[in-house]
């Protein structure tokens, strides 16, 4: 649903499917040269998986990629995740427009010409 909504906002969304390992996420982000990685986690494993993804991206030199997460993430975990390098955690009830606006304001710009 988010992918569809962001498409309607004019984004090109590479959808990789469910149950991705951190390695799969990093590899897809690298090959697709994405500007933003959006992660949805419902399993409760966000405290281990998200930092591993951020570290994996950094190890590949992708420091300028925006990392965002959503799903079921308790508020108390958010500061720790931000510390680990997750740029933004979207809570339940976030609208697609809010996500789109955040990405437009914060993702690295593309060069033209």
């Amino acid at each position, binding site marked *: 649903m988010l992918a569809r909504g962001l*498409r309607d906002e*004019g984004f*090109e969304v590479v959808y990789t499917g469910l149950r991705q390992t951190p390695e*799969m996420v990093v590899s897809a982000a690298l090959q697709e040269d994405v500007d933003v990685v959006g992660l949805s986690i419902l399993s409760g494993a966000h405290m281990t998986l998200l930092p591993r993804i951020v570290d994996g991206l950094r190890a590949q030199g992708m420091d300028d990629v925006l990392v965002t997460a959503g799903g079921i993430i308790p508020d108390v975990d958010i500061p720790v995740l931000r510390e680990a390098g997750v740029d933004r955690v979207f809570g339940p009830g976030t609208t697609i427009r809010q996500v789109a606006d955040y990405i437009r304001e914060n993702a690295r710009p593309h060069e033209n010409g």
Partner: protein
Amino acid sequence: MTASAEASAREGSSVRGRALADAARSGDRRALARLLTQIEDRTSAAEAALRILYPLAGKAHLVGVTGAPGAGKSTLVASLVGEARAGGRPVAVLAIDPSSPITGGAILGDRVRMQAYAGDRDVFIRSMASRGHVGGLATSTVAAAAVLDACGFPLIFIETVGTGQSEVAVAAIADTTLVVQAPEMGDEVQAIKAGLLEVADIVVVNKADRPGADRAASHLRAMLTVGAQHDRALGDRPRPKRPDVLLASGMAGTGVSEILAALDRREAKHGAGSREQADGTRLARAEAQLAGILAERLHQQLWDPERAAATEAVLRAVADHELDPYAAADQLLVSVAKGGRDGPTSAT
């Protein structure tokens, strides 16, 4: 921007393009990915990189894979990638999905079936949105394939949804075109309507474990045989290709090695060593690429800030039916050739 600032910006992106090309060539996958973004964005860095890489390309086997949505293209390509990797060959995939004509957005979902290769650096998968550029999708696709080719991928799959004319065109610029069909979809007639069978070198009846697959395959073979008999009556007129029909199941992996073998046979027959039929494909590819670049260059010239007002005036004159579009086109071409910036001259 002043003229000198513009010139130095252009110089900067040339340097960056060349650096990306060198890094990508030496096996830096991040550089390769960034270069493909430049190609998609059609930047001057991409142009600088292609000037280095194009002469190094021309060795890979470009395989177009197309077919109706739901025919199982991605799953089949994923199986073909696995088969090629089992033989130790690096493989690249360009998966092209349509952009929304309204918002420009796109959902690129072909990776879902190919994520198993995440740990393998000799598999490179890149999604591309069709974007509706001036000059068409073919230009970016051929350029992206040339980059992957120059970076050492001998086998490149270009996957498109076979529903639109531009997708068929992309399939047609490949060395070999594979059309994927599923039984039970009533696809045979649809495929003829869409012109898909005419561009196919190999037709794969996928989901061969489903009932009706054998019947679909023999139906197709029969149809193609009738076509082949009719070829003689066509004499020297252009004739559609007469593809092989193979059965496979991308999901179960059956028939996949046979497809790869058929691809390799074609490559051996028509590939870099030999010419003839392959020559036509190469020329078509070069033409598609050049036509795209010419259209783009022309577009840039026409909408150059110093000429845009004049172009706009001609456009307006055509919209108001004061000038016919052919005369308008000739006027614009002459004006670009002269480097002038005249408004519309009234028809005489």
